[in-house]
């Protein structure tokens, strides 16, 4: 949830949080749920819209722990959940699973397809098996964890939060990331951190190649402390020697870091 204080004028549907009216602020689409109130939902014969509407209805009834049975690789399940919730999938998700969430704790006892948790704002998502490409694309916050391996472009356009992968990652990991941290315990493919603006990537295994402007940086005491703490949260990396990981940051040498306008840059070249 972004904090804005400007007053909008003109025709707009957009609502911003006004600190002066905090008591009256209502985060649309949220529910007050009880973690101890638990239920199961079999989505075998539902499409994704029906399943998501049913999850929303259960949350409106106060259920704080929902177990989804038979997701069977369906797309876009568990998206847009903006309140606290324990959401457990007994199986695998397709594309765009648990995207645009802000707060829930999610566990997927299977695999996830492309773009899992895209635009996640807060919360914790744990994938027990593998994940497809664009894992954690553009996340703003929270912890996104995959215990298996992930595909290409993991953390593309990441703007905050942490992505932690127990296995290997494909090409273009951290492509154009802007903030946050990516941790890969295994190997990564080519073009790691290509054109990253900021943020940090840690790799435990071999690196296929560095992308444009991605450079190695020394591990610090803070890095080691943070990684050790996060591994406990992520339930992976036991006995992993974090001090031997490779740290990658932006070299900040690309054209967008100088003060020249594009036309001036052209002249300089």
């Amino acid at each position, binding site marked *: 949830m972004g904090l804005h204080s400007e007053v909008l004028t003109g025709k707009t549907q957009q609502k911003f949080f006004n600190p002066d009216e905090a008591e009256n602020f209502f985060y649309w689409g949220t529910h007050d749920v009880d973690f101890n109130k638990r239920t199961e939902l079999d989505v075998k014969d539902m499409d994704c819209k029906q399943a998501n509407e049913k999850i929303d209805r259960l949350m409106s009834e106060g259920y704080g722990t929902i177990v989804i049975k*038979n997701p*069977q*690789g*369906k*797309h876009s399940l568990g998206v847009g959940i903006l309140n606290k919730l324990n959401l457990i999938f*007994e*199986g*695998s998700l*397709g*594309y765009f699973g648990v995207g645009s969430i802000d707060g829930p704790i999610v566990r997927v006892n*299977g*695999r996830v*397809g*492309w773009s899992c948790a895209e635009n996640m704002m807060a919360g914790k998502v744990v994938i027990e*098996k*593998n*994940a*497809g*490409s664009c894992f954690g694309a553009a996340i703003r916050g929270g912890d996104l964890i995959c215990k*298996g*391996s992930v*595909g*290409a*472009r993991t953390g593309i356009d990441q703007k905050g939060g942490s992505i932690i992968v127990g296995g*290997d990652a*494909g*090409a*273009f990991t951290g492509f154009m990331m802007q903030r946050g941290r990516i941790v890969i315990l295994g190997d990564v*493919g*080519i073009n790691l951190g290509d054109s990253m603006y900021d943020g940090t990537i840690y790799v435990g295994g071999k690196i296929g190649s560095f992308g444009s402007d991605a450079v190695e940086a020394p591990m610090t005491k803070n890095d080691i402390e943070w990684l050790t703490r996060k591994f406990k949260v992520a339930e992976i990396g036991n006995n992993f020697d974090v001090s031997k990981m490779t740290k990658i940051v932006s070299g900040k040498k690309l054209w967008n870091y100088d003060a020249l306008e594009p036309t001036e840059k052209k002249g300089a070249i």
Partner: protein
Amino acid sequence: MCGIAGLIHRGKSSNVGEELQHMLQALKHRGPDSTGYALYANNDGQNFILRFKVGENVGEGSSSVNEDESVYDERKKLVDKKLSELGATVVKEDRLTPYSYRYEMKYDKDLMEFSKALESIESVEILSIGKSLELIKDLGDATAVSERYGLNKVQGTHGIGHARMATESGVDIKSAHPFWGYPFADVSVVHNGQLTNYWNNRRVLENKGMRFMSECDSELIAVFLAEKMRNGATLEEGMKESLTGLDGVFTYFVATKDSLGMAKDTMAAKPLVLYESDELVAMGSEEIAIRSILPQEIDTYDPFDGEVKVWQI
């Protein structure tokens, strides 16, 4: 965007026609224009199966020019005459639709010369030649095509299929996948993606005597691999060369009479989910394709960028 699916049973046969139908139907949203199957059936292996068309499906959604059906009969007569001249003996013939045929025939000479001769007849295109390959493609979704050609009872070891969203060329059978790996018997290819050096490659390959029947960029993969194999490369070697020889984004499957392979470009820009066990390999553009035949909980994964894999039956 297109959807592709493939499966191979190792050490046994199954109803691959029905299985592939379910997989492709689950991917219909990725490509509603046409559907194609390359099924490797339990034929007796004595005769060649020749599948060819003498015209296009001009039904709803087609970009083809309407023709009087009488021209199909004329072209079929010319095909029969040409087969006789080539020394092929037709053992059995089936007219599957007004414009497509399946022949069983005996033939023991060069397939390239055979194909050139047959396709010299106006609007005649060989869809496939092989002793186990049954290549069927037409407009419509997987169920419609399967019902039209009676595919849900085809027993075999493996198969690949394609649900097409037309982007680079017309909505017609000649641009639909799979593509036969002319002039090799029992070779077929399906592709999801776009190739950006199609014309450069096509000019080179045509100068080497290879044949293109459509303007669909995906056909290049079949021709590219066929040319490599003609020069002695194995299927896997040809596929590895394709990673640098083909430019663009692609995930493709290729099948032969006893193997199934996949290749993914170095950008990993097109999706693929894979399930692999000792008995079965199933893969598709989305996991729901695999789930349509394996609803129980299974372990699947995405192959990485630049990966090539080949499985034997």
